[in-house]
């Protein structure tokens, strides 16, 4: 139980914080390395000549936050500029939060152990809804009022960013500003405003007004959400910024992803109708293969990781991926470094790629057919057929893989029980195929393992399913029971998502400003790390909802009429609402929509002068 009573005032200086950490706190908490700093590549502790500063705070554990590319990019951009300073902070685990409150130690930057209130802004990334209570934790541990309206003139500005800002309303009371969209260019403009504020030429109010005039920035105290229109910020060409990061921190503590990450492409036009990332990151912008390769080689040598990951929403779609991997994999392998691809398409081409990169030999392969029947895959516009899956799986088994992971969703719109049963059918077919291939090669068929992971569709803002509610849990639970019954088969393991977590995520993702009271109450009751199975406390949320006169199931499954102004109607992701509505109709009729990289333009509305898909093709 977290003690909410003691609130650090945020006035301790770096020396006091250091002494308290060394003597009173770090000897007594789990994994103290998370809170000590001193990593390779971190900037020094000196604040000499600082004209503007930001504390990049991640609302989850260090091990999660250190793996987030967005903050690595911002850290590099800010710290590369003379006079600008970015430091890092992460949510303290409950034992550390308790210790910090007991000793009166505020949230601090790991580089200089400076208290959060020394910075001109605290930037908090909102990557997933289940981190919202941790965002409040970061604000309160900074020694500021939770609500924007309670903050004092000299408190840092609290700025949110990341995917969840496409519906900022549930957190609008707590943040002074949100940046919606790409941060590379906007961060420089924001730092410029912070610089004027630090020099005394802008009051807090004037600084917020200045922020509100930047493209992509939403300031709840300035904008009226019923009439405002905040257009998502888009970086037209990733090559405006280097692929390799000059300031890259290499953690000591083992993190979720300990590897060099190079972003090969941003955006995806495949148009899977459930996928928020696919709609809010358009258009597709590829980097040059030559800059990816140079960054991978340089960065892995500088950081010393044994793996380089080529990141994007769908790396097999990167137009130069084949030649790039052919060139890079052997070059890096000679230095003991493996290449990995975070996402594979379901086709023989992807298996061919996977065979070339050593990292995937260690683990199994994951395929995401998403749905069990062709009818359902047409509804969600997942352009994959059963033949695709079978041929990809055959290629994988023939190449020697013995474990295959299949990812599906249930609770999809217009779903029938036979679509759910189709998941089991597909899994059985893949298992039988694997055994057949293994037997044919004289290997024991019993070694073939299929793990099936089934998530629940959570309708997200700015997708064609945004008007629909979460499927009622009694229906979803029935489907899960059916799957459990069907899949008690040797060689298959089944993992199902948790019903409460799905509902909470649904409520938060499509919530209105009225949710802010619920989030604050759950936080006060002790809710933290809601995405962690060992931490989530459903009771706190149920109590908070009840006190607000809300019911979890009703809120989660609430739909919106097509004519209604949506709670996120003021956020313009550049994809037209009409387009999303048309896609919902296409889903209803099982009509596929093509990928505009290969087929005709779908008129989604994203492209305009200077902004459009950048597909470079193989070089040389």
């Amino acid at each position, binding site marked *: 139980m977290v003690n909410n009573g003691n609130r650090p005032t945020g006035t301790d200086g770096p020396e006091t914080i250091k002494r308290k950490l*060394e*003597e*009173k706190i*770090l*000897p007594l908490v789990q*994994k*103290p*390395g998370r*809170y*000590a*700093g*001193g*990593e*390779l590549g971190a900037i020094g502790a000196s604040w000499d000549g600082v004209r503007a500063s930001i504390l990049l705070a991640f609302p989850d554990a260090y091990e999660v936050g250190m793996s987030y590319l967005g903050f690595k990019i911002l850290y590099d951009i800010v710290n590369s500029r003379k006079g600008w300073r970015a430091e890092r902070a992460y949510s303290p685990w409950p034992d550390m939060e308790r210790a910090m409150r007991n000793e009166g130690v505020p949230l601090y930057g790991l580089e200089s152990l400076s208290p959060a209130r020394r910075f001109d802004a605290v930037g908090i990334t909102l990557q997933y809804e289940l981190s919202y209570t941790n965002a409040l934790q970061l604000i309160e541990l900074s020694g500021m009022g939770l609500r924007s309206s309670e903050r004092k003139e000299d408190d840092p500005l609290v700025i949110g960013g990341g995917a969840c800002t496409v519906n900022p309303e549930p957190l609008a009371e707590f943040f002074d500003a949100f940046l919606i969209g790409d941060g590379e260019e906007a961060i420089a403009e924001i730092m410029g405003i912070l610089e004027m504020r630090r020099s005394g030429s802008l009051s807090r109010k004037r600084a917020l007004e200045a922020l509100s005039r930047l493209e992509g920035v939403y300031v709840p105290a300035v904008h009226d959400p019923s009439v405002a229109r905040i257009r998502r910020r888009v970086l037209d060409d990733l090559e405006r910024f280097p692929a390799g990061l000059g300031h890259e921190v*290499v953690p*000591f*503590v*083992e993190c979720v992803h*300990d590897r060099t990450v190079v972003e090969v492409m941003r955006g995806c036009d495949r148009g899977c109708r459930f996928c928020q990332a696919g709609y809010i990151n358009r258009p597709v912008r590829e980097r040059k293969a030559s800059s990816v390769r140079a960054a991978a080689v340089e960065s892995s*040598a*500088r*950081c*010393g*990781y*044994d793996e380089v990951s080529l990141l994007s929403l769908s790396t097999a779609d990167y137009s130069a991926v084949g030649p790039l991997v052919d060139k890079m994999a052997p070059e890096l392998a000679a*230095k*003991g*470094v*493996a290449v990995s691809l975070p996402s594979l398409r379901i086709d023989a081409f992807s298996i061919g790629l996977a065979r070339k990169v*050593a990292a995937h*030999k*260690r683990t199994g392969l994951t395929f995401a057919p998403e749905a069990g029947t062709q009818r359902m895959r047409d509804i969600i516009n997942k352009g994959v057929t059963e033949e695709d899956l079978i041929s990809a799986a055959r290629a994988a088994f023939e190449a020697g893989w013995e474990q295959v992971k299949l990812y599906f969703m249930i609770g999809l719109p217009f779903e029938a029980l036979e679509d759910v049963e189709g998941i089991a059918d597909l899994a059985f077919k893949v298992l039988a195929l694997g055994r057949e291939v293994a037997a044919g090669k004289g290997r024991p068929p019993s070694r073939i393992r299929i793990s099936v992971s089934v998530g629940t569709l959570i309708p997200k803002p700015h997708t064609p399913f945004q008007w629909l509610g979460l499927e009622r849990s009694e229906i979803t639970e029935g489907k899960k029971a059916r799957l459990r019954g069907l899949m008690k088969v040797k060689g298959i393991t089944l993992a199902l998502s948790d019903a409460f977590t799905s509902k909470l995520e649904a409520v938060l993702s499509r919530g209105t400003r009225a949710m802010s009271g619920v989030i604050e109450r759950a936080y006060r009751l002790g809710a933290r790390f809601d995405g962690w199975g060992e931490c989530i406390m459903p009771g706190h949320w149920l109590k908070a909802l009840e006190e607000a006169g809300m019911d979890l199931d009703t809120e989660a499954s609430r739909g919106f009429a097509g004519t209604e102004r949506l709670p996120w109607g003021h956020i313009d992701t550049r994809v037209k609402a009409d387009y999303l509505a048309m896609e919902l109709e296409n889903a209803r009729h099982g009509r596929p929509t093509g990928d505009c990289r290969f087929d005709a333009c779908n008129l989604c509305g994203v492209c305009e002068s200077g902004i459009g898909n950048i597909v470079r093709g193989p070089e040389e």
Partner: protein
Amino acid sequence: MADMFEAIRIRYGKVGPGRYISHLDTIRAAERAIRRMGLPVLYSEGFSPRPRMTFAAALQVGVSSVAEHMDVLLEKGVEPADVLRMASSAFPETMPLIAAGRFGGGYALPAKVRRAKYLIRPFCREEAGWSCGSLDDAIRAFEAVPSVTVPGRDGKEKDVKGLVYAVRAVDGALEVEVACGDKNLRPQYFIDALSAVTGGLYSGVYDFCRTGLLIDLGRGPQDPMADCVGTAFSEGFRS
């Protein structure tokens, strides 16, 4: 087998925030440092090849050190002075490389570790009931008792007396030489024992630093670097 390869023995430290790095994280960090250096290191076979490195003795989280050691197998020989030069930017300040020497092989380093030296200071003198004048008395009390046991982390009573080889007070700090290796004494247990023989005077939070490691190759306890040739020391650690 090992003497087919060239090997280098490295002494490194864990200072400042480096003391909070766990043993497993230290191994990973050292692997990355070796890769950053570009040493021609030998890799293990298999799906996930790892640099062939051996670590002398795990260090408790929270304890700093200037006496960590590892052996690294190389494809071809490298001069210790070159190792130091390559390491200067590859090892983080919190995990500095202190010395390197050529090592002839023939044994596994961890199997030969026998003793470790620690320097112990209280973080907070008042809370620890610590005063310089009483240190000698406490040491005498410790030496006078025939045996002293403390509760270990596993709940079992742990005999301390037989695992402490030397204790002395130096400039208001304690210097101890204790068992390390197969028989092992965490320095905290020594403080617990000191506290037990003095009626609870020495409980509190301490700053522990490992200042030396001793191996036994059949000639009595010796510094691991003494079994190397051409040992080169980093500036600032020349001792």
